[in-house]
């Protein structure tokens, strides 16, 4: 892969349902190495579908067309066997609900180990050390105990840390975070955001941050794409979107976010 092609290049992406109804239309954006992009939109705006399409993991019955080039590989229309080499290795996903994103019957260490075993071919003691290292990096206390535990035995924030550890274990170049803090308490939310922020910065990873929450996105990324009804309605640097939004929907988003903020100021 030459240096001038971006890490992720999405062009004219369209996702259609089984009946052919478009759910995402004409979405384009690029993310270079170390860059950060926010995908903003309400539920049903197609932001999550867009992020699923990037790794070729659309729910059953949905089909993508257009072009998604990830790490030099065309994802749209690629076969499962080719996609497996990209997932976890070049791009990883952290999901919204940490409890359901972890297998309830598998020890956490094994879940973190899976991508390491698969992509890096680690075994035995080297694998165990890598798992403890990955858990240590997400600031989990006592990684040995966590590795032996099942998901129901640790807290929500810890689960999301484990999910992040599993996603980042193979040092992917792109992290897709799909509403990673929506299901968490506000205090835990801030810690997880700070953790993602640090890890992405430390490793010079690219980040696609998907959220409905303008404040959260503005904290994490410099530029953003605003989606509504499956279409891009506005895009640009975060500062401009916040100070001078042009699209009516973005204006409304910013206004309601400020209203919430103002309510805090008064009380």
């Amino acid at each position, binding site marked *: 892969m030459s240096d001038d092609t971006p890490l992720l290049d999405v062009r004219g992406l369209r996702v259609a349902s089984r009946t052919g109804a478009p759910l995402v239309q004409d979405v384009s954006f690029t993310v270079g190495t170390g860059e950060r992009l926010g995908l903003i939109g309400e539920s049903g705006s197609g932001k999550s579908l867009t992020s699923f399409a990037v790794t070729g993991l659309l729910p059953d019955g949905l089909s993508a067309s257009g072009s998604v080039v990830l790490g030099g590989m065309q994802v749209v229309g690629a076969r499962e066997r080719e996609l497996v080499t990209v997932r976890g290795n070049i791009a990883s996903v952290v999901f919204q609900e940490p409890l359901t*994103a972890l297998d309830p019957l*598998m020890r956490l260490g094994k*879940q973190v180990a899976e991508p390491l075993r698969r992509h890096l071919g680690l075994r035995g003691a080297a694998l165990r050390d890598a798992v403890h290292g990955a858990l240590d990096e997400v600031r989990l206390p006592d990684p040995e105990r966590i590795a032996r535990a099942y998901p129901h*035995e640790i807290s929500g924030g810890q689960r999301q840390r484990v999910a992040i550890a599993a996603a980042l274990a*193979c040092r992917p170049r792109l992290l897709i975070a799909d509403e990673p803090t929506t299901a968490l308490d506000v205090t835990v939310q801030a810690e997880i955001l700070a953790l993602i922020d640090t890890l992405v910065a430390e490793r010079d990873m690219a980040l696609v941050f998907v959220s409905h929450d303008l404040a959260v996105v503005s904290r994490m990324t410099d530029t953003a794409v605003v989606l509504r009804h499956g279409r891009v309605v506005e895009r640009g640097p975060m500062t401009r979107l916040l100070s001078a939004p042009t699209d009516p929907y973005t204006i409304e988003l910013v206004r309601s976010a400020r209203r919430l903020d103002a309510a805090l100021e008064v009380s």
Partner: protein
Amino acid sequence: MSAIVDEAAGQSGETRPEETGATRTRRHSVTLTIGLILLGIVVVVAVVSLFWVPFAPGDTSGERLEHPDATHWLGTDKLGRDLLTQLMIGARIALTVGVGSVAIGAVIGITLGLLAAFAAAWLDDTISAALDILIAFPTLLLAMLIVAAQGASLGTAIIAIGLAMSAVVARLTRVLAKRVLSQQYVTAARTSGTGWFGVIGRHILPNIWPTLSVNLALQFGIAVLAEASLSYLGLGAPPPNASWGRLLQEAQGTVAVAPVGAIAPGVALVVLVIGVNLLADGLRDVADPTRKRSR
């Protein structure tokens, strides 16, 4: 049979939260222990029968329809054969039938169920329709058809029972696997590069196993009873195989004179079936770590 499927499927997730782990585990380890003891008695008897039985199976030297005494502990049948001997060999046959048909039912059923869960909609619908027909099809009729084609033997009885069971297992597997497939951790595993076989081996099978193993244990009991019915009707193991069902049938005419001949195989059946059912109940907690007390 379908009621069992629905019940087992319902138990997998919804009943968990409000129970306190400790008391539940203790209560269930009691059922598990009793189940193991009852099943253990039958297993020990079956194993002993391989090496030693009081009389040879075909030995008709005893008086006919003798009452239990020091020589013939459970008396003799109408041909003068020792009943305890027959009963011990019957234990072996019952266990063979249970293990054999559960193995057939599990292998075919789980494979078909997984196939249906992964398949495109039209294939899934086809498999499901075929399973529904097979479940509605009486096991007895299926056994009669196979016996008509192959002749009555223990093997045909096991195959017939196993096939009938596989439909139930397949339907349960399909529902459970579909539920796991829709979970986010499957998507998460796939985003980290796990292929479909990895997903089946690492996520689907372990997650459906607690419910499935309970169902298979229940099916074991049903299979033993089914074989007893088949043998009773002459569709199971042919004489002189001492299946419990056939012992019951032979003792039927003489039950007023020698009640032990009918009671003994009946009690044996009850002990084995209750044993595996209790075991099934206790098994769930062993197979599912989220139900154990957290350490």
